[in-house]
């Protein structure tokens, strides 16, 4: 038996392929949306992976440092470092801001890291060019996605930094590239005020009789000195000694330091379950809407193609063609349209859309397989309307009168 669907497609292949390409662009957008969601999840995981931490010690009862603000004293790390099971501990600050370079600025997550050695918590785990930060001030390591190059001069607040190293895939959970600077500079950047504000603060302090007592001459100077330093960091990142359970060490820190501690799994749950949850739901809604639109388009196309063949179908029925042969004709065409659409969509999403999206688009093989199955199922469902129309065709329509 010849393939009626195949012959019909070959007869008008231009129209069919053109329609499939149109559908493919829609499927490409759908796959890209799924890729954006995967990219967001991957960004979050990469952020955690690259921090090199097993535990995140943050301000009590906060979801910091990524989902909420968190402040703890910058000397806390010493006592944490001395606790059983802790291999390394390091302060870290995070501040998302516009980093200027000449006339342009880039939104980046500025990360303050303690002076240490590569592999320390918070440090970029590897570089693709240049070297790590070796000086205590005014050096930076930037992610390639920021567009900065080695030797570039960056401005963060009032200070300038030289890019000495470049790294890759070091991004915030929002996809912003990371710029690493020395911790002291980062602490200053978080709280640094302009000169007018500093003068005003000093004047207000001096005018306060509680701080400016004639009988305590050094009090005012001490208070002003304390106001001009920032003794806080956002979190302490902890690496655990091998042979120790993260949850046990975390429980110990919670008990003795009265701080909130998150394990890797808990922090991942915060990032994915809370920080990007709204975006994920939004993307899921887009996926649902795009799937419905795709189904509607396939249904409409197949229905229109079928209506154009009503007389031929009446003749086929009259000459004894079984319903299942005619249903097969429609369903095969619907699936063929879906296949063309999926191939075009996959190519479009992978080669055209993913590279131009500002956010990281991660197209996973399993998503493609699920997408393929979904397209086939949608096409089968979409052909039902046309099949219903075909089954109602009366073979008598082929006979005049």
């Amino acid at each position, binding site marked *: 038996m010849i393939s009626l669907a195949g012959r019909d497609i070959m007869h008008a292949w231009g129209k069919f392929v053109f329609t499939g390409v149109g559908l493919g662009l829609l499927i490409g957008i759908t796959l890209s949306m799924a890729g954006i969601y995967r990219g967001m999840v991957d960004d979050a995981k990469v952020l955690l992976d690259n921090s090199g931490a097993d535990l995140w010690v943050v301000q009590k009862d906060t979801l910091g440092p990524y989902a909420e603000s968190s402040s703890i004293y910058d000397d806390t790390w010493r006592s944490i470092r001395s606790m059983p099971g802790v291999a390394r501990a390091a302060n870290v600050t995070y501040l998302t801001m516009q980093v200027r370079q000449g006339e342009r600025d880039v939104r980046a997550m500025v990360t303050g890291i303690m002076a240490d050695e590569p592999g320390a918590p918070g440090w970029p785990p590897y570089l693709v060019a240049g070297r790590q930060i070796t000086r205590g001030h005014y050096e930076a390591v930037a992610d390639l996605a920021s567009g900065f190059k080695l030797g570039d001069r960056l401005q963060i607040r009032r200070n300038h930094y030289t890019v000495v190293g470049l790294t890759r895939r070091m991004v915030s959970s929002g996809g912003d590239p990371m710029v690493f600077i020395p911790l002291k500079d980062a602490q200053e950047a978080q709280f640094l005020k302009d000169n007018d504000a500093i003068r005003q603060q000093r004047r207000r302090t001096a005018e306060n009789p509680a701080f400016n007592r004639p009988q305590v001459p050094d009090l005012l100077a001490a208070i002003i000195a304390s106001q001009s330093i920032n003794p806080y960091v956002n979190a302490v990142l902890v690496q655990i000694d091998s042979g120790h359970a993260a949850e046990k060490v975390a429980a110990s820190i919670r008990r003795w330091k009265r701080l909130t501690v998150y394990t890797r799994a808990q922090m991942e749950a915060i990032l994915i379950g809370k920080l990007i949850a709204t975006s994920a739901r939004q993307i899921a809604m887009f996926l649902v809407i795009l799937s419905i639109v795709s189904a509607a388009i396939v249904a409409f196309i197949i229905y229109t193609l079928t209506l154009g063949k009503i007389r031929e179908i009446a003749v086929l029925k009259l000459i004894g063609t079984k319903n299942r042969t005619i249903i097969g004709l429609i369903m095969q065409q619907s699936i063929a349209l879906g296949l063309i659409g999926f191939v075009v969509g996959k190519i479009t999403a992978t080669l055209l859309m993913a590279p131009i999206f500002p956010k990281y688009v991660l197209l996973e093989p399993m998503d493609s397989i699920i997408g393929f199955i979904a397209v086939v199922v949608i096409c089968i469902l979409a052909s039902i309307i046309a099949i219903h129309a075909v089954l109602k065709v009366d073979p008598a329509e082929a006979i005049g*009168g």
Partner: protein
Amino acid sequence: MTGKGIRIEGLRKRYGSGDTAVDALKGVDMQVAPGEVIGLVGPSGSGKSTLLKCLGAVIEPSGGRMILGDEVIYDDGWKVNDLRALRRDKIGFIFQAPYLIPFLDVTDNVALLPMLAGIPNAEARSRAVELFKSLDVEHRAKAMPSQLSGGEQQRVAIARGLVNRPPVILADEPTAPLDSERALAVIRILNDMARKLETAIIVVTHDEKIIPTFKRIYHIRDGVTYEEAGEGRGVE
């Protein structure tokens, strides 16, 4: 009549019921022998199409009998289970317009019927090509329907009606879109094929050009048929 051919006795068809019921056929009798081509003529609304649809097992009559060859196919109810198979294997159709499947080439348009009946593709195609020789369209076997002239399309449609060698062929105004010369050519072909394949052919028509060619004519008016001897001039 033995073997092939068709006979109908007291065939009735009523549309609707109660006060709105319409009797389209009021007891039609007709007999067509194998190898015979008869004309069925009548004005619009006389019941021609209804009779054709009943004969073609497309709609169910309300009463009467139909005997196809030796087999009673209808006797106040269908006597065959699979009407599609009946239409496919025992009734050939030729329509007013060729209604060829536009996405199949000429050979496959004709070979499709035997293929549907389960005959292997190669054999089905060779049957089609054999018919093309008789109908003088062999040279167009690989063409698409849109590449054929009106006369060629109609000859291919005739081949499709004949390819399963049915005992009866129902031709619904097969010459309507054709000029006189081509219309007479089609009737000549039908006569030749009827004789050759021992097929009974019923030609529904009101084409004045071809009516004189029939030896027997059934007139149908208000759902009743009247047999009349035709001029039977035939076609040279």
